[in-house]
């Protein structure tokens, strides 16, 4: 199948005082139409920067793309002029943000803000836009959409605001939705509702989703394919069942075992953690970026950068110690 999005060796760096930060370093992955790809990693591992790069929203300077391609529907987005890119943003690729509290403009009604997206990309009459807005509110499950469109963001709850954000992202039927930790700021019940809504909308509209999170549980529920990032690099990528059933990279294994298990008696044990902290991007270790925290690291891990190993069936691992796993 033709890939909707094909990211090849993407490098997004930031030049700051004291050197160059490699926020995204040689990252490749693909998304097929209708697929959800989960991008997992700790805070600061470059997953949000990767998303911003796809949208062309990395502030430049200090950011710059040092190399790679972002091929969307056969076109390299990095080569497009800003005016063409603007037409893609919001209509073909849209974005859902982490904080529904702050990502809506406080001085406009939510209806106006969704209408603005449609107005930017399609030539419709005011009545048609109004109908589209109400229709999109209904689609994302906002009750009484006719009166809710007149609400200001502060009059809505966090879950409702995130629904508005999703309505905004869906307003022009995008091919790809980038969801940057869309449920992190919400409590668990609302989180479940929003995830279910996104899954349902995806199957209805056939859009692909790039789902960014640090929550493996959410990934298991949402994604078909998972990419695990660490300090700007891809550590492991696989189909979701493969990754959860047969994780290969020590980092992935560490993440999995850091998920608390509910239960008492025999099932109850001390929660395992990954020792150490994420290395500073200013001072990355030589060799494998993870070796300082790795439990199975060998001699070559601290000297040689591990190669990408393809285990077949799309399962890719970046590690020296595969034999040991």
């Amino acid at each position, binding site marked *: 199948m033709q890939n909707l999005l094909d990211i090849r060796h993407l490098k997004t760096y930031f030049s700051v005082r004291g050197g160059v930060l490699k926020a995204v370093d040689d990252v490749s992955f693909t998304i097929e139409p209708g697929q959800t790809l989960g991008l997992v990693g700790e805070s600061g591992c470059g997953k949000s920067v990767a998303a911003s790069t796809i*949208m062309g929203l990395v502030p430049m300077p200090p950011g710059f793309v040092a190399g790679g391609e972002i091929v969307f529907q056969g076109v390299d987005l990095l080569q497009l002029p800003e005016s063409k890119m603007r037409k893609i943003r919001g209509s073909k690729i849209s974005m859902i943000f982490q904080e529904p509290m702050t*990502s*809506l403009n406080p*001085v406009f009604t939510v209806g106006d803000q969704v209408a603005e997206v449609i107005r930017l990309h399609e030539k419709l009459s005011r009545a048609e836009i109004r109908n589209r807005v109400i229709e999109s509110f209904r689609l994302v499950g906002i009750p009484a959409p006719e009166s809710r469109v007149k609400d200001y963001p502060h009059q809505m709850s966090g879950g409702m605001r995130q629904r508005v954000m999703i309505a905004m992202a869906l307003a022009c039927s995008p091919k790809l939705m980038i969801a940057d930790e869309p449920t992190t700021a919400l409590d668990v019940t609302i989180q479940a509702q929003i995830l279910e809504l996104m899954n349902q909308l995806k199957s209805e509209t056939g859009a692909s989703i790039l789902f960014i999170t640090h929550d493996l549980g959410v990934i298991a529920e949402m994604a078909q394919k998972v990419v695990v990032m660490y300090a700007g690099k891809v550590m492991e990528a696989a189909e979701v069942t493969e990754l959860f059933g047969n994780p290969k990279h020590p980092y992935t294994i560490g993440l999995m075992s850091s998920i608390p298990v509910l239960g008492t008696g025999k099932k109850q044990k001390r929660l395992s953690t990954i020792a150490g902290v994420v290395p500073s991007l200013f001072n990355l270790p030589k060799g494998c970026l993870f070796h300082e925290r790795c439990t199975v690291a060998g001699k070559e891990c601290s000297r040689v950068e591990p190669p990408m190993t393809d285990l077949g069936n799309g399962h890719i691992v970046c590690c020296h110690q595969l034999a040991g796993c």
Partner: protein
Amino acid sequence: MDEQAGSATSFWARIRNPEDRHPFFDQIEKLFKNKTGLAGLIIIAVFSAAAVFAPLISPHDPVENALYDQLKPPVWDEGGAAKNLLGTDDLGRDILSRLIYGARVSLTLGVVSVGLALTLGSLLGAIAGYYKGWLDNLIMRFMDIILAFPHILLAIVIVAYLGPGLTNAMMAIGIINIPRFARIVRASVMDEFGKDYVTAAKAVGATDRRVIFNAILPNCLAPMIVQASLGFGAAILDAAGLSFLGLGAQPPIPEWGAMIAEGRAMILRAWWVMTFPGIAILLGVLGFNLLGDGLRDALDPRLRD
């Protein structure tokens, strides 16, 4: 249009319900509760009413000479008559009528010069704050140059270049007030710039222009309104100063500063000719400053209890 009646009732219902209403109404309520702010508002309301209804309420024509009524004192003074409540000037013109028409001149002048300063200032400030870098440096250093001149001196230079007259005085006062607005707008734009809704606006494909004017600037309105209100007072004062120097309003326009200038030769003989316009300027400037302070208290989130 089909549901106007319905939306009208819900509008009032929303205002009455503190949970549901727009924060704007909280701020209005806060302004009304602030005694000095309310005092400023009342002064300005009275002056505005005088300006709007000048032909209806002024007892005489402001420019009509009455040679038999020269330098009549105010009504409570010896020799005063009810015909000229605040007396007359050396040409027999009714001071009260001139003051009432003067409110027109002063308010128009305030609107025009503050409007000019606000428009250009926020435009420049928004561009500087949004694009940063060399453009910011260029614009703000230029603003610094304007600020480096003594206020009234620069106005005098501009009027001297453009030629004396009320319109040119308005222009000059507008220009010297541009940095006030540019600075304040730049600071608020920079403050808003990092917020998520700005990124969100870019992410839906809005142009820079749209991001600045449709997304960011409406969020910077509070400091702009406060500054505009304070700027009004300053503009009236500056205009009075220019007119006093003979560079602003030309006779027979009843401008308060010009009236003071005309009356200053007679200060010992006829104190009322320049005292009343002076009080009018004082009250007008005071009104706008009190309103500005009241608005700042009502709009500044840091001062909210």
